[in-house]
């Protein structure tokens, strides 16, 4: 019982991370500047520093981008 619950939890977390990882490439290359024009022309290390956020917060970001 606990084992099944833990396996489901880990599967969900893993899937979330994989999807976030895929999304993050789109976000760093395009999505971020679409969302916020100040991103245009910012240095590579800025993109690097927001990259982990794009992986972990992809659900919120995707929703905002779709609404836009």
């Amino acid at each position, binding site marked *: 019982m*606990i*084992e099944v619950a*833990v*396996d489901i*939890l*880990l599967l969900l977390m893993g899937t979330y991370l994989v999807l976030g990882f895929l999304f993050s490439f789109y976000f760093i290359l395009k999505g*971020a500047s679409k*969302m*916020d024009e*100040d*991103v*245009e*022309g*910012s*240095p590579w*290390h*800025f993109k*690097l*520093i*927001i990259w*982990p*956020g794009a*992986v*972990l*917060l992809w659900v*919120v*970001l995707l929703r*905002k981008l779709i609404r836009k």
Partner: protein
Amino acid sequence: MSVGYTSILWNAEKKRYDRGILIFVLVYLVAFYALHAILHPNATFETLLIRAFGILAFFFLHVILVIGPLTRLNAAFLPLLYNRRHLGVSMFFIALIHGAFSIQQFHNLGDMNPMRSIFLSNMEYLSLNQFPFQTLGFFALIILGLMAVSSHDFWLKNLGPMVWKSLHMLVYVAYALIILHVVLGAIQNEKSLTFFAIVLGGFTSVTLLHLVAGRMEKRVDEEKPIVDNGFVMVCRPRELEENRAKIIRWGERIAVFKYDGKLSAVSNVCKHQGGPLGEGKIVDGCITCPWHGYQYLPGNGQSPPPFNEKVATYELKIQDGYVWVNPESKGEGVEVEPLNLKDYE
């Protein structure tokens, strides 16, 4: 402030703050190691590493949680608040080292997947003194991670203040999880009474400081200012300190600043994260937010170029020897002639 982004916003003061963090960490680690070499000469290096970083992260979390209330009680603590964000991110990395080494040490040995092992190597979920406390640390670490990755100004702006604030209020959930993680873990490791006393002391300080600061806020809010003809009384001009403000509460909070023999009033709420401008100082002619240093010109509430933040401005007058402010704002970034105190001497 906007106009392009960069990765980490550093200035001389922030660099000093970060150097302070680094020196503290290094001195702490050396002291911790030396002390343990004497007290527990048999402990392995990994065990010491796990303990040292766990305790350090736990300590930093306490500092982070008490900075807010402490600055409310006494402005002398403001320098600690100035770069709390970097302290938070450092704390996450320190906790991550603790967690990663724990997983390596305790869960990466058998043939079970280490992630599963965190949850399944100990299944006493219904027991109190045998509870798998590491799972609590795991969830706390996820929260701290979410906060660390979203700490850049880009996230505040683009997640929106509501989402961002909710995310960062989760620090209290993380704190509760970590307290349980530490206490339940300590029970299993049969820690000394001193250890429990220190944890209890930390928890009590965080709780009490939040209660006291909260009560103080409420009292300020309940003070009834004197109103006459639509103007709210501030105080006598000489009660104001040079380059400092007095905060008036009338619907919105208003900060009335004194500088160069003049007075100006702006909204107390910083455009960045709502920091209390009236608790900041005027530096180089600009009102400087005590939280992260956003600046505004007192005469028109605008950030100096090239920035474009604007806070609301208010009209002032002197009558019967007192300063009065009109709580109807003139609008954000609207020029209001400062009140020249020389005209009234």
